């Protein structure tokens, strides 16, 4: 990803008349319509830039906060294999946060600002991470459902019009498919070869994660404020409801294979549409969790702030060490090779 430090000089002309601005926007939209990628130093409408900063930052924050519910189970994973896998998955989420922060920075916002907004509680992140992970089956359900929903959302973003975001998403999608598979494998073990208690634990996890997973796709199309413009700009390729439906259609048979039931009495196959029809989603729950009233909002932010504060001395020490190294004569420095 390129970053804002690469931006070439050349401030916009302050005297630009609205007509010239409209002409630029028209040419920008034509580029989008031709499926050209927009790169960091290209001209873009301010609203496009702000929309992307908001979306990519929320996405990055979600990756970072997303490490917490699963990190909770690293020390209690039932085997060394499960533990190694979980550590690798959580480390991937951290890496995905880094790719995304870098992509957001290409739009002219600093890493410090973004992290500051998260820690100050002014930034949004995915509502799903404000639910607790009560049992080991929750780790299976998160991989299967939460990562499954995330992948459904993210695959079309690989073709997003903004180059750095699209490239970050390609990398993330490649890495994420193991996340969903390891989750489903946990569910398989519990539900198909487990004891009765383990089967019940798997069903209980599905019961608690199903509806919040459907909410991950965001509000229904009729209530989504950003969808139309984002689709015109080809930031989004499908609407929230279209992606949610795809996820439901893919997931219901997977639940059936596990021998588990989806907690929705209205769920049925609709022969006419060739899709599963579901009962209504409780959007008041979604709104409440977004507003900070979910079961774990405060706990998640508390953990994030504590991690940031307890890392303060490390950041200070690294900066002091770098200063000291710079102050030394060049011959005294070592530790890395020249490019070759």
């Amino acid at each position, binding site marked *: 990803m*390129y970053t804002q*430090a690469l931006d070439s000089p050349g401030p916009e002309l302050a005297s630009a008349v609205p007509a010239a601005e409209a002409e630029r926007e028209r040419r920008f939209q034509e580029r989008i319509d031709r499926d050209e990628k927009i790169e960091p130093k290209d001209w873009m409408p301010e609203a496009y830039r702000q929309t992307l900063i908001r979306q990519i930052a929320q996405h990055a924050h979600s990756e970072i906060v997303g490490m917490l519910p699963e990190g909770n189970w690293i020390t209690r994973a039932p085997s060394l294999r499960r533990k190694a896998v979980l550590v690798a998955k959580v480390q991937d989420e951290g890496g995905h946060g880094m790719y995304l922060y870098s992509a957001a920075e290409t739009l002219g916002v600093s890493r410090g600002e973004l992290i500051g907004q998260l820690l100050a509680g002014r930034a949004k992140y995915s509502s799903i991470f404000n639910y607790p992970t009560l049992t080991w089956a929750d780790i299976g359900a998160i991989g299967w459902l939460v990562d499954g929903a995330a992948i459904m959302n993210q695959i079309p973003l690989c073709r997003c019009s903004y180059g750095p975001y699209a490239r970050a998403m390609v990398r993330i999608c490649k890495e994420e498919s193991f996340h969903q598979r390891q989750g489903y494998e946990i569910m398989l073990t519990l539900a198909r070869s487990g004891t009765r208690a383990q089967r019940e634990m798997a069903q209980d996890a599905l019961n608690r994660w199903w509806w919040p997973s459907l909410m991950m796709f965001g509000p229904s199309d009729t209530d989504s404020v950003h969808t139309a413009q984002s689709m015109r700009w080809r930031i989004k390729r499908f609407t929230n409801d279209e992606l949610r439906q795809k996820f439901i259609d893919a997931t219901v048979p997977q639940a059936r294979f596990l021998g588990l039931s989806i907690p929705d009495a209205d769920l049925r196959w609709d022969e006419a549409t060739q899709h599963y029809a579901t009962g209504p989603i409780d959007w008041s729950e979604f709104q409440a969790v977004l507003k900070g009233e979910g079961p774990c909002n405060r706990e998640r932010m508390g953990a994030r702030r504590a991690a940031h504060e307890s890392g303060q001395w490390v950041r200070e020490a690294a900066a002091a060490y770098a200063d000291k190294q710079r102050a030394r004569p060049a011959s005294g420095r070592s530790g890395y090779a020249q490019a070759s």
Partner: protein
Amino acid sequence: MNEDWALYEVFIRARSGLEHKHVGSLHAADARMALEHARDTYTRRQEGVSIWVVRSSDIVASDPGEAESLFEPARDKVYRHPTFYTIPEDVKNI
């Protein structure tokens, strides 16, 4: 909030015989930390055998607004491509 550490661009050689390719960027306090973070951030699945890190501020980039005039001189020089030349079919190995 502290000021951000310097930004580095990361280039990775996937295996010997290939060139280093830009893969992304990261913040680090110094070059050595940049290399270590690049290892953790961009090569968790054996994506490389060699890493370069370069301070982003040391990269000089062309301006996309001037791309037209910058690359225009090459546009009318089709004679730089082999297909520009017609060779009789009877002539072989050329």
